[in-house]
């Protein structure tokens, strides 16, 4: 269904087809590998749910912990990030600039370095080190700038300034203005930021691998563990679990976010 005015582009078409195969084939291959009896014998060996069952037995807990951690990360970054985003949007002082710059550094600096720093500073506090809070703190440091930047640019809209001014002249105090006007107005941005934070936290490995202990494992950590020590079928089945649990969830959240954007966005 090519438009007539479109120039033909055989080279671009060829690249697109090749890249699509390169991107999509491994996903199909790993889904297939998780469902066959014997990977080296291929589909001929028959389909089975045995590997999925084994993965669930060994690593089922990591799924729940990953989701809980991502959720806690969203809550934490909203609580810390939204007021901070407001402050950064309203203050254009030099100090605010520097603070914003600093806040974004954990994104630019490799996760491995951040993780090492956290271990060096807090590794001695055994109770903290051995709890999920240690991983949560790492995830929050890494995802906070995404929340702050997204929400801060929403706070900067001109009509919001006028609205806030109007509410102030009518005698609303800051808490009333913030919760009653500002937060509802930037709500779509908060949802978008939350979605980003959730996605980043669920898939985070670079920090998490260093921060985890045998008792605090997330889904990506479990994946690396199973890849290193188990059969290729188990690894594939575990990847399949990731696809089956995380992706529908991300799509559902994306759908909700779009819906909200349409209804409340301006």
């Amino acid at each position, binding site marked *: 269904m090519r438009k007539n005015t479109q120039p033909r582009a055989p080279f671009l078409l060829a690249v697109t087809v090749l890249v*699509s195969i390169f*991107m999509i084939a491994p996903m199909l291959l790993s889904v297939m590998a998780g469902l066959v009896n014997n990977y080296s014998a291929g589909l001929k060996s028959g389909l089975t749910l045995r590997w999925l069952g084994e993965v669930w037995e060994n690593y089922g807990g990591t799924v729940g912990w990953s989701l809980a951690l991502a959720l806690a990360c969203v809550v934490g970054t909203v609580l810390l990030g939204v*007021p901070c985003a407001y402050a950064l949007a309203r203050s254009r002082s030099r100090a605010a600039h520097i603070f914003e710059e600093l806040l974004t550094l954990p994104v630019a600096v490799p996760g*491995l370095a951040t993780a090492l720093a956290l271990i060096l500073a807090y590794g001695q506090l055994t109770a903290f080190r051995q709890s999920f809070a240690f991983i949560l703190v790492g995830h929050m440091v890494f995802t906070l700038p995404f929340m702050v930047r997204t929400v801060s640019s929403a706070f900067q809209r001109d009509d919001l300034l006028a609205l806030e001014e109007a509410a102030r002249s009518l005698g609303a105090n800051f808490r009333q203005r913030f919760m009653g006007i500002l937060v509802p107005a930037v709500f779509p941005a908060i949802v978008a930021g939350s979605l980003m934070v959730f*996605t980043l936290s669920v898939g985070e*490995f670079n920090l998490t691998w260093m921060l985890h202990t045998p008792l605090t494992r997330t889904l990506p950590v479990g994946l690396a563990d199973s890849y290193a020590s188990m059969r290729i079928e188990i690894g594939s089945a575990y990847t399949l679990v990731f696809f089956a649990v995380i992706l529908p969830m991300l799509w559902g959240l994306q759908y909700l976010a779009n819906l909200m954007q349409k209804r409340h966005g301006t």
Partner: protein
Amino acid sequence: MKPANAWNPRWRLLACAAPAAVFFAAFWLLPVVRLLTLPASKGWSTYFAVLTDSRYLQSMANTVALSVAVTLATLVLGAAVGIYLARHTFAGKRMLLSLLTLPLSFPGVIIGFFVILLGGRQGLVADIGDSLFGERITFAYGLLGLFLAYLYFSLPRAIATYAAAAEAMNMQLEEAARSLSASRLRVARDVWMPELAPTTLACGAILFSTSMGAFGTAFTLASKFEVIPITIYNEFTNYANFALAASLSIALGLVTWLVLFAARRFGANPVTR
């Protein structure tokens, strides 16, 4: 009237930023300052280990070369796919675009595993090679495997970015060039490249910096080709050489931060994308 109402707006802003600032200071600034000062305890020369020790220098050079190669390849391929998808309509295009950008949410380890499925000892290519030439070809654990894995996690970002940028491109310039009988190559060079230059700069900087720090992928492929994140990991966990691991982390952090900083100086803002 609550006392908060009488506050100077400046104090109010400060109070709003305070929780995030305290959290950030406690869990990033303070630890990082400790990381920065740690190598000094083993003597000042520890800071320059990455330059003076040939093994670390080699590892750093490997990482930079690999990241540059992956970034360039990704930019070319991503631009081609992005422009094609933005210009043509066909059934299932939205589906294809969402499949192509799906890996953005994959942890790096999954991508490493994909490459093992393709090029490992029991991989697809080994099987095909076995039945065609009677030889099991494996490339997953070497340079080619790492390159393909890095390419795999870089492409989705580039495709998404270029597809969005190409949608916004000015078609009239291109039609004018064509009507003056410019060749395809000239159109690509003289019309597309300048228009997409800011996108390329921002996208290239972030691709380079993610490649430099990519730990999960390299970790899964446990490669013979040593990259700096793996070197740091080995120094830290296998040899408990904390000062050296810190020094190498500083070097790695500096390189990636400098690239992002330079890109921003030239007008691109990579971090928010």
